[in-house]
């Protein structure tokens, strides 16, 4: 016999309306403040909130319709009060308030808590969710203005009235054209695309070999070796950069003088070696982690069937640890691609990379082209993130872990 519990719909006059009124009063306070009198705004907000709650409860509208109606209504009020920006703010307030009313009125606010929770516990649960939501907002929101401003038609780092009014003349792609069309940005991009892949290749090939060595059963001094190999990740970048500066500057001069290599070439070699060293810990960590789950009987089986160690490595071991290798490589790539301090210290103007150019730009505030570059980089990182996530799932599937 199934035990069913009847959840009562919450009282309108005793719960939903007052709560909505209180919630709406906060918006009223803010809007009222913008027009010079927060307290009148507070009262109007409370009245509007309570009215909205009753109206949505009483009117025979479906949720979607009710939401649409109030969004439009609030947006119109917003246009009257504050123009284009006001419309957007009004629509957002309308959407939030309507959602709030339905959320309370339908009893959804108790959906995720056990049935025996008291009102106070439910309130705390929902407040906690709100806090977490705000923290996620804090994590993600800063990136939004950057992307938005990168379409600015003016050469400013700030929003223009046209942008806020959503007028077409406030927006343009000119910063993207600047980014793609000038040597100032294309040369650094080219340098980044030369340095990062080669450094990644070095870190991945050395790192994977060493990780395989480290995962053997009898390695003398494993702890000490591990500590040395991980050290580039632990030592603060500024110290690594200082040390490399003292080391590579005379080394580079010596190579130029004695081996007759060009200054540009030696400069690239220096930066690539430095970046490879910085990327290695990530490869070591991810590949050793993957090797922990590697079933050794597979290599023994391969050897049993007559495969030599090299064949075993490439045909049996490598495909299985490939996800770890690739995600380690991605970390190494992003480390190099995103790195400024070491390039600043070790490289010369010829090796100027994209982050370097952004750094100088930010320090001297030259143009919002930086924001276009930033938006492109965010897009790239979203793609990389997606790749890593897919690889992780594939690796779990391959290892027979539940994809859960």
């Amino acid at each position, binding site marked *: 016999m199934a035990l069913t519990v009847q959840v009562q719909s919450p009282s309108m006059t005793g719960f939903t309306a007052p709560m909505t009124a209180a919630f709406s009063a906060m918006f009223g306070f803010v809007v009222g*403040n*913008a027009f*010079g009198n*927060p307290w009148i705004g507070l009262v109007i907000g409370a009245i509007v909130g309570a009215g909205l709650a009753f109206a949505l409860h009483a009117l025979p509208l479906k949720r979607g319709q009710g939401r649409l109606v109030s969004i439009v209504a609030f947006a119109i009020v917003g246009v009257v009060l504050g123009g284009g*920006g006001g419309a957007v703010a009004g629509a957002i307030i309308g959407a939030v308030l309507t959602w709030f009313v339905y959320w309370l009125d339908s009893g959804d606010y108790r959906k995720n808590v056990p049935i025996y929770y008291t009102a106070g*516990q439910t309130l705390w649960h929902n407040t906690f*969710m709100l*806090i*977490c939501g705000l923290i*996620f907002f*804090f*994590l*993600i929101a*800063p*990136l939004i203005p*950057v992307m938005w*401003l990168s379409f600015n038609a003016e050469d400013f*780092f*700030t*929003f223009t009235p046209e942008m806020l009014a959503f007028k077409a003349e406030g927006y343009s792609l000119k910063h993207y054209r600047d980014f793609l069309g000038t040597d100032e940005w294309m040369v650094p991009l080219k340098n980044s695309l030369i340095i990062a892949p080669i450094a990644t290749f070095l870190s991945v090939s*050395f*790192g994977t070999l*060493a990780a395989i*060595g480290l995962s*053997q059963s*009898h*390695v*003398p001094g494993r702890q000490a070796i*591990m*500590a*040395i190999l991980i*050290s*580039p990740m*632990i*030592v*603060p970048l*500024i*110290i690594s950069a*200082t*040390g490399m500066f*003292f080391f590579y500057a005379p080394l580079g001069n010596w190579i130029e003088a004695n081996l007759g290599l060009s200054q540009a070439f030696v400069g690239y070699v220096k930066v690539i070696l430095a970046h490879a060293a910085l990327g*290695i810990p*990530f490869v070591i*960590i991810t590949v050793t982690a993957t090797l922990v789950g590697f079933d050794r009987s597979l290599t023994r089986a391969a050897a049993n069937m007559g495969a030599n160690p090299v064949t075993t490595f490439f045909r049996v071991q490598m495909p299985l640890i490939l996800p770890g290798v690739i995600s380690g490589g991605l*970390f190494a790539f*992003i480390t190099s*691609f995103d790195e*400024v*301090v070491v390039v*600043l*210290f070790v490289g010369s103007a010829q090796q100027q990379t994209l982050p370097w150019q*952004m*750094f100088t730009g*930010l*320090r001297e505030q030259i143009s919002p082209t930086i924001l276009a570059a*930033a938006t492109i*980089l*965010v897009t790239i990182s*979203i793609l990389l993130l997606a790749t890593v996530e897919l690889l992780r799932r594939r690796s779990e599937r391959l290892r027979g872990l539940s994809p*859960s």
Partner: protein
Amino acid sequence: MSDTTESGPMLAADGTPLKQSLARALRRQKMRALLLIAPLLIFIVVTFVIPIVSMLFRSVENQIVSHTLPGTVEVLEEWSGTDGDELPPEIVYQNLYIDLFKAAEAKEHTKLGTRLNYEQTGISSLFRTTGRNLDDMGEEWQDPLEDIDEAFEEADFWYSLMSGTGGEELLEERRNQWAALIDEGMAGDIGFTLSGEIAEMLPWTARAYSDFAIYAAIVDEDVVAEEEPWEAVYAALGMDLRSAETLDAIASYSGAGADPLKAAVANIDQLPTITFKEAFADQDEDWLKLENWQAIKVYSPDYTTGYFLNAIDMEKGIEGIQKRPDNQQIYIMLFQRTLIMSLIITFSCILLGYPVAWLLANLPVRSANVLMILVLLPFWTSLLVRTSAWKVLLQQQGVINEILVWLGFVDDANRLILMNNATGTIIAMTHILLPFMILPLYSVMKTIPPSYLRAAKSLGATNWTAFWRVYFPQSVPGIGAGSILVFILAIGYYITPEIVGGTDGVFISNRIAYHISSSLNWGLAAALGTILLAVVLLLYWLYDRIVGIDNVKLGG
């Protein structure tokens, strides 16, 4: 089974004793593992560990003083520098002239000036102005000598006077000093050998002429016999002619060039009587300043703790270690600020990261994975993108101020100053480092069984008690791991403080970068870096004790 050996050790298939065979297999396995690791280990040691160690050396290295002024440093040892206001004796100034002339020819004296200027302001310009006038000082002796005997004008005369055998030791010593000064081998044929007799009779002249000969032959690639010597050689002869022993020796000397020398002795009253101390003082009064000489003496050893003392706002005085004047104390304050701000950032990260990690660990996996993307996206986004985002948000005309002004919470004239101070650095760095707190916290919380909380509640605990007494203690390792990770990253941060920190929000790392690229006081930068490295390694050791390096996880 029937043919097992009844006695003796167990044998492997190839007939060797099993123990030996196993040992060999184990050794081979070890070798193979080491061979696989070796390329990377060598790579890291060469490109990373050696550079760091060389940085540590640089923080105590101080050979520049003894390499540039070898003679001066040697005779300065006799001078205590603490007997009242007594300046160094004349012999120090004489050595200074010979050393400085040589350094000025190789254009190395300004480097030393810059180095000593870190310790005693004004020395840099003192060396620079004096370096320009060393020729004039030498001509004070050159002109009268050439008036006395025209032979002194001729390269031939000098060459034949100084040439001979027996002075090889002195010549080699001078060659080594040159090599130390200009960082080159200085090997090669000089085309000149010093006479031992002259080296004994005219010690100053022999040194100055050797210096000149080595430089002319090896650096300028000229023929020594055809070059007129430096002014310093004339001045050195002047120094020699003041010694009674030299005058006696010249009287009984009959080798090459004896006549002009004797003529010089006969007309010694035509030579200037000014001491080198006075001559230097004529160039620059500061050569009579006790502090300058004390600085040279204090920093004359090859290795010094001076940079480290400087890094903790102390300095090396002639009488021992003392505090710097109050207006020059900056590093202790910067270290303190770096530590305090890193602590604030770490604490903010715990405060913001804990609820999120808890939520991620307790939600169903599917929704947790979606939310995890919100944590990982900033983690994967370029540091510079996030820093520029905060610049956009925090500046006076930035998004936050605009919204607050629009809503009427902030007066247009009194916009909040969120950037170019400590607030900006703390906000931006908390955002940037937050994922490094959330990820370790999450992986620890994932291992805490939710049934513990339910058990606590069913035993009558309130929500708070159940959390505080049961859940929280189990999540402490996660807090520890995340805090140390965030703290280590924070105290070494450079880019973000540089861009949003202004002057009040910068860290010690910004000062290190300043000394590397602007003030060029590399020794101090290395000392500051070494102290920072020591702090980080200590924390790293703690991290290893608490979490273990093997447990570092990236991106879940």
